[in-house]
């Protein structure tokens, strides 16, 4: 039943047909290439688009600026601007708003600058602590101890018609210029 593997030599074409065959092969290759690119473009495009065409940050309202008491730092929830209903509770996000004095704020991401774990604010010792690898930050966001290479990530903020707004949307990371 079983045979020794046949030789895989291509049959030599008849000389008279050589031109026609060469043309057909070239045409076939070209058509396949064009068709392949046309099909692949939307498939690969949809998969990598989020990396190449990221959504832009937006101004997000956190509520009336007068809500915050000077000298306090509080956790504030907001909705991701690019979120979809399908995101469930992960559509929510949080940041720390530090009110230095009336009208003067610092807004920190909850993500540790080391590897993005959620830092917790301790009002009593005025420190942020990270539960993963032990990064600690002072209340102004500067690094106090542990592995983080920098202070907490900050969002730009502004007060628009008495409302505190932050410029956010992107999960903060070390590439951030802030």
């Amino acid at each position: 039943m079983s045979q020794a593997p046949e030789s895989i030599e291509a049959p030599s074409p008849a000389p008279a047909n050589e031109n026609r065959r060469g043309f057909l092969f070239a045409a076939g290759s070209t058509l396949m290439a064009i068709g392949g690119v046309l099909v692949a473009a939307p498939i690969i495009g949809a998969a990598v688009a989020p990396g190449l065409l990221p959504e832009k940050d937006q101004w997000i309202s956190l509520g009336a600026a007068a809500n915050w008491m000077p000298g306090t730092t509080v956790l504030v929830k907001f909705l991701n601007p690019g979120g979809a209903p399908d995101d469930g509770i992960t559509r929510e996000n949080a940041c720390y708003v530090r009110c230095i004095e009336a009208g003067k704020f610092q807004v920190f991401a909850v993500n540790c600058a080391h590897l993005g774990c959620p830092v917790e604010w301790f009002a009593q010792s005025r420190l942020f602590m990270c539960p993963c690898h032990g990064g600690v930050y002072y209340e102004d966001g500067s690094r106090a101890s542990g592995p983080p290479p920098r202070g907490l990530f900050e969002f730009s903020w502004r007060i628009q018609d008495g409302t505190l707004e932050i410029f956010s949307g992107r999960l903060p990371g070390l590439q951030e210029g802030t």
Partner: protein
Amino acid sequence: MGGTGWKHRALRCVHWLDDRTGVLWVLRHSMFHRVPSSAKWWYVFGSATMMFFMVQVASGIVLAMFYAPSAAQAYESLVYINERVPSGWMLRAIHGWSSNAMCLMMLVHLVQVFLHGTYKYPRELTWIFGVCLGVLTLGLAFTGQIMRWDADAYWGLGIGAAIVDRMPVFGDALRGIMLGGTQISGATLSRFFSLHVFILPGLTVALLGLHLYSILRKGISEMPKAGEVVDPATYAKGYEERVRKTGVPFYPDAARRDMVFCGAALIVLVGIAAWYGPMGPGALPDPTIIEASPRPDGLFLWIFAALALLPPSSETFLLLVGPPVAIALVALLPFIAPRGERAPSRRPLSVLLVCVLATGAGVLTWLGTLSPWSPVMDAWTSTPVAPEFVANRSPLALQGALEFQFAQCRNCHAIGGRGGMRGPDLTDVATRLSWDQLVRQIQQGGGNMPAYGKTLSSAETQALVAFLSTLDGNALRAVIPGAMEAQSSPDAMPVAAGTRPSSGDR
């Protein structure tokens, strides 16, 4: 008449099938090919890995019938599988524990192949396919952990994103592709579902085929013997001859051991799954619940530990360059050491390497479970100051004990062995630091401790130091069992004469 007629018809069926498909030829070469007779119990681990992969495929397909890969519903669907689907919890338990078992068997298989020098000529490609399978298996394990879509999964993704983000130039784009957007969201779960259910298993099946094909083509290696050196010029001929002379058919001779081991492993798997149950889901994946202490699954704990212990200055470099270089080195091993001795007894460096790596991974995993570098986030409210540190203290020292809890000192410092382990245990701090040294340490910090100078008033500092200076270690228990009894009870003195202090003295 009936018997022979039936047999005859069946045979004709088989012949028909073989004529159209060539199945008998395939069977003969895959099932009944000759393997070295020395291939014994050491060779079962690869089969076991493959069997657990099949368990994963089967249980995973059925789990996908119930799992909702949507960020809004994934968690609830897991709870539904656990509680409502008949034997659903068992299915999840089997899938979870079989994943662990597959990784474990793969690791043992890898170490065995490495120690036996099986990767050498002519099985280079078999090894490389195997290494690729190993990477895929780890990928499956990580993406599987994401499927659980609980707090650990959410923050695990955050850690993954933060690592990818550190990559120069492409970091941002790659992170966007990984997350499917600018945030961890439903799109992220969909992506990882696609990876876990289609892409990685598909690649695994393909590579498994190549792995098995290359095994069949170049044959199972013999047990290494000291002195039998692999020489590409003569190996192939010698191997073929030995197998023809002394080899045994794979089925049933060699397969018997595989069957015994795999069957036993399956039963143990079901036992473990029935006893320990499914893993998670844990806390809800709510990004606004800050009181989370994300931890990876056991398999990745050593990475978690390494991330805490790497020096910050070289961390990014090691994170981005280390894993690819390590994997490439392992994959290219057959070209680094293609010939020579196979027996572990003649390859002390390889044995040493395995020992060092195993010890390192074990220690890191152990540290990862302890995570002494992490503050215990709720120790300040949940870990009591034990009565022996409260009794006979002045009112100021009691206020200091309160300050110790209130200022979250306890999150990093233990007293009496309870509390955080990030900073030193302070049970006997008064024997190490004077009053003034305590004040300075608290005010200025240092040695990885934040400075509290701006936070604490003079009275608070005085109280805290008053309390700390009472921690003279007198409450420490004796390290040597029985030493305290020997000191305190007079009749314990003649221990040397053979009497033991009675336990009733305690």
